[in-house]
């Protein structure tokens, strides 16, 4: 006979254990009734748009949000349909996704990894978001991609240019439509050789964080392959506001090209400072001094004003492209918002349509079915011509643009001119390329 007395302490312990178990967040374990995380059961489906609404990239985030809202309108059969009319896949019918009306919730990444994860988690856990789309930073993209992998939802990245997003940090649930630093180098190198020659000495100023390092590595590799010499690579703190003390040493360094591996406010300020110091008026080694900004965006170009005139860089997409997909998107966006879209807006719009189309083709919202539909998907009509979503690393491959600051802009929007459309084949690389090595895609997680 055993004597099992019930004590107050025992009741409290058992209660605490049971309570903790019940209170465990359910986002990482889909309910037993659902086959996957946030399986839509009603007449609508919720998409989560996670963009910077505050902080230094708020303008870019706002542009992404406008494009995402436009995509939702088009998916629901409202407006002029935009790229649904030009998209090579005809799975989308303008009646939502799989017949369910598309709704959306938004989160504010603040361009901070922890805030972005918190807002994505909230949208998945509280709002039932079936996918997460958007963002304007590689740090944020990698952080949110990891969260979506754990949560069992699809992550359609926004503006993220670091090689790592689809390199060492790639995930089976994450997909990137935007180009990357390697592609910038591969696209820029031939144009740099043609315009500046093969005997150049480059000085790099690089934002001291993950994206800056991968871009510097990519540009150094591609320019040295041309025959250029790298004089110096200097890391600048991300929080820097004045770059004069970094620019001054360039003057007498023996360099004749300055490469600014900066983005956002860093790029605007470092370029402004370089122009102030008269670098573009300087002759070094018997050649005109040149500046290169490998990653451009329209909004940053506007911030840099006249300083970008003549400065070369690369872009994922530009509203001045003349393919049918671009024309349809620019018309739709321009008529609704009164301005042409930025390349971050375009990538978020395309990602939303690509996700919806993949769901339609898979016939399910199950992330693993969607991922399978996206992998090695070949399409056209969303801008940049024929595009391939490579299955091996979930990186999109399409034409890349080399652009230059317009010498004679006619309005506030044509601050950049397209110099060359680099064919897709020229920017492709092996999934095992050393710059992308070190990570595993892993297995798709549906949250089941």
């Amino acid at each position: 006979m055993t004597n099992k007395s019930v004590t107050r302490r025992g009741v409290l312990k058992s209660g605490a254990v049971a309570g903790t178990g019940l209170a465990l967040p359910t986002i990482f374990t889909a309910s037993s009734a659902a086959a996957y995380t946030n399986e839509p059961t009603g007449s609508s489906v919720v998409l989560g748009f996670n963009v910077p609404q505050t902080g230094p990239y708020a303008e870019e985030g706002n542009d992404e949000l406008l494009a995402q809202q436009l995509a939702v309108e088009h998916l629901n059969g409202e407006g002029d349909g935009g790229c649904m009319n030009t998209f090579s896949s005809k799975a989308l019918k303008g009646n939502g996704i799989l017949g369910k009306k598309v709704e959306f919730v938004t989160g504010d990444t603040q361009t901070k990894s922890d805030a972005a994860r918190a807002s994505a988690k909230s949208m998945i856990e509280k709002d039932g978001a079936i996918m997460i789309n958007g963002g304007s930073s590689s740090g944020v993209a990698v952080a949110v991609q990891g969260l979506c992998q754990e949560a069992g939802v699809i992550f359609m990245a926004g503006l993220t240019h670091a090689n790592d997003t689809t390199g060492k940090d790639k995930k089976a649930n994450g997909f990137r439509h935007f180009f990357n630093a390697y592609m910038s180098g591969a696209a820029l190198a031939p144009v740099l050789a043609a315009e500046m020659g093969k005997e150049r000495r480059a000085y790099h100023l690089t934002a001291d964080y993950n994206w800056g390092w991968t871009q510097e590595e990519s540009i150094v590799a591609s320019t040295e392959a041309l025959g250029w010499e790298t004089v110096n690579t200097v890391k600048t703190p991300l929080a820097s506001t004045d770059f004069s003390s970094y620019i001054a040493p360039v003057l007498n360094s023996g360099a004749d090209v300055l490469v600014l591996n900066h983005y956002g406010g860093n790029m605007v300020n470092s370029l402004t400072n370089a122009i102030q110091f008269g670098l573009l008026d300087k002759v070094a080694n018997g050649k005109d001094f040149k500046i290169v900004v490998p990653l451009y965006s329209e909004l940053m170009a506007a911030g840099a004003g006249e300083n970008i005139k003549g400065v070369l860089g690369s872009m994922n997409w530009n509203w001045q492209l003349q393919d049918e997909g671009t024309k349809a998107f620019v018309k739709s966006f321009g008529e609704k918002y009164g301005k042409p879209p930025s390349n971050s807006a375009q990538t978020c719009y395309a990602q939303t349509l690509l996700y919806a189309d993949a769901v339609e083709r898979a016939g399910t919202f199950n992330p693993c079915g969607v991922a399978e539909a996206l992998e090695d998907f070949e399409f056209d009509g969303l801008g940049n011509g024929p595009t391939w979503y490579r299955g091996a690393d979930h990186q999109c491959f399409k034409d890349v643009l080399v652009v230059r600051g317009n010498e004679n802009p006619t309005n506030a929007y044509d601050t950049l001119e397209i110099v060359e459309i680099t064919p897709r084949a020229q920017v492709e690389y092996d999934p095992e390329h050393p710059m992308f090595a070190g990570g595993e895609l892993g297995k798709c997680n549906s949250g089941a």
Partner: protein
Amino acid sequence: MDAILLQILNGLDKGSAYALIALGLTLIFGTLGVVNFAHGALFMIGAFCAVSVQKLLNLSFVTLDETQKDFLGNPLKVETPYVQSWFGPEVGATIIDWSVPLAILFAIPIMLMVGYVMERGLIKHFYKRPHADQILVTFGLAIVMQEVVKYFFGANPIQTPPPEALSGSVDLGIMIGFDTNAIIYPIWRLVYFAFAVGIIGAVFSFLQFTTFGMVVRAGMADRETVGLLGINIDRRFTIMFGIAAAVAGLAGVMYGPLNPPNYHMGMDFLVLSFVVVVVGGMGSLPGAVLAGFLLGILESFASTTWATTTIPGINQIIIYLVAIIVLLTRPRGLMGRKGVMEE
């Protein structure tokens, strides 16, 4: 040698901004005893005074140019500034070109008013509260001010270029016997340094050579005794708050052409400026100016390739490193007075 001179110039230039902001902070702390974390926001508002003047001068009327098309294929909207229409294209363009110097005239009354309203409307209620309360309320105010600016002007930086005549760079090397192109320096950075020296000189002269300044200095030394003499010292201190706000604002107006203003620029300077004040000595005006230039020069040298390769990361910590050393060896700062913030 030319590289050293270049970094000294850069340091003086950075130090100019630090010194001007720290001077205002010290004026407020020395007179009112308030630790004003909204001072960086005043610098930012000054810069946006220049942005506002630029936008006002660029107010335009629109005509349609049928010969050109916009991005949607519609006739291009051509904007002509009213000032060009009123004063002719050349005079109008010159007025727009000089918008930053003209903004000084606009910024002085605006900043005096902002300072006055800030002090009377909010900060005076916190005089007798602990410094922690003052820091919290002024920091909150700074966030509100920057969000208001972001609401109206957006988050992107906005270019406020210098006048054409003062843009570009000048070969200083030739003037002092160096080779051509050895020391090339932007003209506006030299203008900024000269402007900072002028403002600092004007503030010191005002305090040193006017009756008002004499009373303020007396009030800073012993507020109660000056009050017992029947002088309304509170009123004078309120005016000093306005002057401190104007100094920060003018520093911001002139800083715009160096780096395009954005809503966050005040925060970028705030922490550094407090370090400058502490290193200079709380309440010491000459200390704030000296520390501003000193730390500016040290920061510039720490950013050189030689320094960053010798001690990686030194450029990011130099100011705080110096602050630690100064506070360990001279706890009251370089020129701090006994009894200030020690009770």
